[in-house]
């Protein structure tokens, strides 16, 4: 299933400035290493509940997030550690959240699936497949009504396209020309159900174009392509042309969650995709182009390792919210908005 790399890809791929290329690599490594640590901490029972890892898909969040401005909004799914991290939620607040500590970005109320952050306009971690799309169009509607040239980026998996909320939202966004950037992360499996086993039409861009929405597929294993596509789409969305749809073709290397024995796909398929590891291939390409050397990789890895070690330290040192405040935030503390 992996699309073969072609010469055309190389020509299309934007030329990256060295510093920016290193930044993209750094962001992908932050996600990868954070999540590897998460898996370890899950086994150590420090993190509980559901834990959905993004490993293999890092290029999408690391690339797409580059197209967003500080006052843009993000709506993501329950597989959102990477998006949160690249968006700027500090690793320590994410880790504390996974620990369930009140220093976490959602005070320990949300956990892995519900990372929220007002400072970066990160509207969650939505764990109902398709449930974030209507919220995203509402955020975009507010911007349109208030004449703000902002973008709302809405991330969701390909499994969401089977939901009614996907179609309702695509239609409404296109009908009202709302500034939404729909980012479909097609990792080919909705938990264990392959796209071809659940959809009569597996060309996801066709679904978007049927709503008169510009749509194009993106190599989701190539961070530079992800960024370029997102920038192009975000520009159109921001200029008031209405929503865009991007299908990032990617692959999840790990199980759906920590409970998944992966009976629905072969090891060979996973291994085949791992050859296109977004970090390894990007690293190799940069070295080939003379933009990166081993010492720099070592330095980035060391800085990332340090960041994650500090995040774990912060989470370990975090405190539990007193049980007495359990029902706080069911309703707002204040009585007036």
């Amino acid at each position, binding site marked *: 299933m992996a699309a073969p790399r072609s010469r055309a890809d190389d020509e299309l791929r934007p030329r990256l400035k060295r510093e920016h290329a290193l930044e993209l690599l750094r962001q992908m490594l932050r996600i990868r290493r954070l999540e590897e640590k998460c898996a370890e901490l899950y086994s150590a029972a420090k993190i509980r509940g559901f834990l959905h890892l993004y490993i293999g898909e890092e290029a999408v969040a690391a690339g797409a997030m580059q197209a967003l401005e500080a006052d843009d909004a993000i709506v993501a799914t329950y597989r959102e550690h990477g998006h949160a991290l690249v968006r700027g939620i500090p690793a320590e607040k994410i880790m504390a959240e996974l620990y369930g500590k009140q220093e976490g970005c959602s*005070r320990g109320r949300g956990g892995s699936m519900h990372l*929220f952050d007002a400072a970066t306009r990160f509207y969650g971690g939505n764990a109902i497949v398709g449930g974030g799309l*209507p919220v995203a*169009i509402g955020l975009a509607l507010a911007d349109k009504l208030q004449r703000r040239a902002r973008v709302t980026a809405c991330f969701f998996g390909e499994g969401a396209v089977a939901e009614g909320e996907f179609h309702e939202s695509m239609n409404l966004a296109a009908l009202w020309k709302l500034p939404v950037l729909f980012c479909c992360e097609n990792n080919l499996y909705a938990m264990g159900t392959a796209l071809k086993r659940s959809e009569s039409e597996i060309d996801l861009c066709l679904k978007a174009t049927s709503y008169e929405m510009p749509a194009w597929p993106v190599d989701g294993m190539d961070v530079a392509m992800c960024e370029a596509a997102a920038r192009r789409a975000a520009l159109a969305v921001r200029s008031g042309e209405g929503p865009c749809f991007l299908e990032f073709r990617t692959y999840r290397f790990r199980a759906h969650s920590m409970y998944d024995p992966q009976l629905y796909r072969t090891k060979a398929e996973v291994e085949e995709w791992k050859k296109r590891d977004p970090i390894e291939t990007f690293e190799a390409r940069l070295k080939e182009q003379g933009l990166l050397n081993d010492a720099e990789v070592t330095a980035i890895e060391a800085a990332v390792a340090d960041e994650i070690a500090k995040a774990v330290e912060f989470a370990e040192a975090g405190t539990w919210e007193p049980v007495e405040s359990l029902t706080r935030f069911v309703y707002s503390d204040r009585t007036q908005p």
Partner: protein
Amino acid sequence: MSAQAKTVRMTYREAMRQAMRDALRRDPRVFLMGEDVGRYGGCFAVSKGLLEEFGPARIRDTPLSESAFVGAGIGAAMGGMRPIVEIMTVNFSLLALDQIVNNAAAILFMSGGQFNVPLVIRMTTGAGRQLAAQHSHSLEGWYAHIPGIKVLAPATLEDARGMLWTALEDPDPVLIFEHGSLYNMEGELAADAGAVDIDKAVLRRSGSDVSLITYGGTLGKTLAAAEELAGAGISAEVVDLRTLRPLDTATILDSVTRTHRAVIVDEGWRSGSIAAEISARIMEGAFYELDAPVARVCTAEAPMPYAKHLEDAALPQAPAIVECVRAMVGNRG
């Protein structure tokens, strides 16, 4: 101030419309969206004329996509607007349950207090118009089960006129249930009627023998029953809950403590109903005050039938309330 306050004669529908017009004029962040709220003038004509006055950006006709436009209301509310989302009937709101329960009610809590959702959702509820089993149910009691939202049931012109603004000022999601049979109810409303509180039950009639506890579409029937009971020498107090979540338990217990008997009249089905919740709270808070077991007059446990005689039989009616109270108090006539 003149001894006789000036009043205007109007319907519940007009009071609701006046409330929306007032809100749209007062706050540029307010807008209305829903199916047929604009060109059509509202399925029940509540928003008639608003499109002409406020334009299509603020009076937004939506596709038949309950989940998308309710979710859009949630997003718009978090984005700084004050949306009023209209859903044609409570039965249709089931298509938006994901957004109402998983998002509107939960986001403030899930986000550790970072994102509140100042959204108002209005919808029609209740039976009595021969609309059968998919347009007639009373599911407000269901919604009242859910922490994170507030549930209002205006039963009077004052509340139809006054609850909306207070709901819009609330930082959290508020659902307003308008009983379909009330829209044509006509009466006198103070010319300067405005916002009312949304957290207190009120006595619509004082009495000493029994507390009749009700809300919304059954308030009229309950008051009629109380009147008939008065003729039979039974003094019934009528409590209008007004808000089903949060419930004003204090007013309920205070009334029962004085009358020592309680009948709950609820157009929802009996099992797992708001009537059951009120009954439980009376047991918890005023058990030793009771002279008789708490009784309930609810809708028959069946989907709503179309045929008039069957629908009438399914719903709580004044004679059934009277009969229930007489059995409890004993005949005094």
